[in-house]
């Protein structure tokens, strides 16, 4: 019974937090575009991906309510992302040796 009333109220974020996250996302987009003009060499891609990851984290936790969702949701998402990461890592342990011409 208690559980039931809980599931209807747990997502009640204020409007304010969404607007704040939106402002942060817009600012990060601006930074990505501005930084893209600067050549950091090999770090350029890393910078772009780092900013994209921060933006994704904000969308996942606030817009997609993962912050207020029960723990099992975060575990599921974490496992899904971990396996995607493993795919990239395994692939590049191979490719970074093959393509050294």
């Amino acid at each position, binding site marked *: 019974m208690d559980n039931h009333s809980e599931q209807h109220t747990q997502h009640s974020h204020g409007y304010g937090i969404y607007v704040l996250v939106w402002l942060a996302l817009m600012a990060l987009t601006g930074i*990505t575009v501005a930084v893209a003009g600067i050549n950091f060499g090999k770090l350029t891609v890393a910078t772009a991906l780092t900013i994209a990851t921060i933006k994704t984290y904000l969308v996942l936790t606030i817009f*997609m309510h993962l912050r207020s969702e029960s723990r099992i949701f975060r575990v599921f998402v974490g496992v899904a992302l971990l396996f995607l990461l493993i795919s990239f890592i395994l692939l590049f342990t191979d490719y970074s040796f093959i*393509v050294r011409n």
Partner: protein
Amino acid sequence: MSVQHSAAAHIHRDDVASRMGMWLFLFTELLLFGGMFILYSVYRFTHPNEFHLAAKELNTVIGTFNTAILLTSSLTMALSIAAIQRKQKSLSIIFQLLTIVLALGFMVNKYFEWGAKFHHGIYPGSDTLLSKPSGEILFFGLYYVMTGLHGLHVIIGVVIIAFMTAFTMKDVITHDNYVKLEAAGLYWHLVDIIWIFLFPLFYLIT
């Protein structure tokens, strides 16, 4: 009538499971796009200079503008759920309609962007494209498939949100039963996340 309705709703509803189901579907989307991002990463790794040259053909201004549009549509989607939670039905409908308008704006920009590429003879299988080095052909192949598939998701999202708006108007979605709107929101934010990665990887290669 209303007593009966709420009694039935309490027996048959499990909002947490509904959202979990939606997340499981989103993981299959992650596999779909993740596979393409893996393909992209390998080809970019093997053809860095050609990817750099080809990316210069893309319009960064339209790309940035579209990023802003999609991020804003994610905001209006999140706000529509916040509004329905507060029993502000009309406000929720307005936010949902705004989301649809922004999504359509995104597709209009996409139309002009692709139109310009086609005008310059850059489209899959064109003579202009096939005369370019293989790395650039791969870049544009990935560009059309990945942004095309993303665009398809945007169109599907518009249809889904339009249904949600109709449901909200007919009180199928209400302040104490809005899990459908939440699921639509989850889908829409995923489309946003995919674009968050597509944008720098295609438009901002230096």
